[in-house]
């Protein structure tokens, strides 16, 4: 019986539905009180950029969808190496995100019963 879920966000925002859908899934688990964490990795780290402006393409904001997770104590991790390889400085990220080295990924896996990828 799964008591915790790790949600991987691997896709960038606004071109695809995936990242938003993953954040919503994380929220649905968090609302129910399930231990849930979100991990932004690969192109998913583009969701962490503070200056994103969803209204430019009339989409719901992935930044707001991420921040809603904080209300339910769902931590959101961002892989540092994936930020670095995309030339994104940590100063460009919005508040509340936890930047972690890729070596933390195995720990997160061990701490959650199931994983889903977006």
């Amino acid at each position, binding site marked *: *019986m799964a*008591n915790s879920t790790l949600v991987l966000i691997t896709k960038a925002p606004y071109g695809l539905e*995936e990242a938003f859908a993953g954040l919503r899934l994380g929220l*649905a688990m968090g609302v*129910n009180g399930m231990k849930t964490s979100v991990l932004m990795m690969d192109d998913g780290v583009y969701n962490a950029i503070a200056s994103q402006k969803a209204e430019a393409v009339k989409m719901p904001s992935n930044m707001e969808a991420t921040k809603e997770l904080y209300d339910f104590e769902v931590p959101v991790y961002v892989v540092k190496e994936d930020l670095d390889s995309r030339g994104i400085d940590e100063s460009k990220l919005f508040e509340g995100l936890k930047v972690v080295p890729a070596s933390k990924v195995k720990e997160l896996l061990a701490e959650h019963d199931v*994983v889903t990828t977006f």
Partner: protein
Amino acid sequence: MPKTLTILWRTGSMMAMDANVAVKLARAALAKGYKVDMFGYGEGVTAVKKGQNPKRFPNVGNELEETIKQGVSTAICETCYAARGFERGEEIAGAKVGSLTNDLFKFISESDRLVTIAR
């Protein structure tokens, strides 16, 4: 108590063979005595539309309906369903138009394994 598998699929019925793979996996797990739940999310919800007629391609709607008859609980995301213009009543028999918060949460919390079939 048999172990439980939840399969979350997110690819549309005609986009790829993903939904068919999800069904095959569900049936193979069922045949081995596991309990199986399935949840369609995003584009995946198109697979439960009744009346699909893909001519010579596999009919995933029919396959899914048969799988439900065999005992696989199947639900989909209503928000995703409505977004694509589908209404309640247009789904195959036995598929539940539900939600992440109620149905997927229940499936996951009762599961030993979660498999995601998506691209």
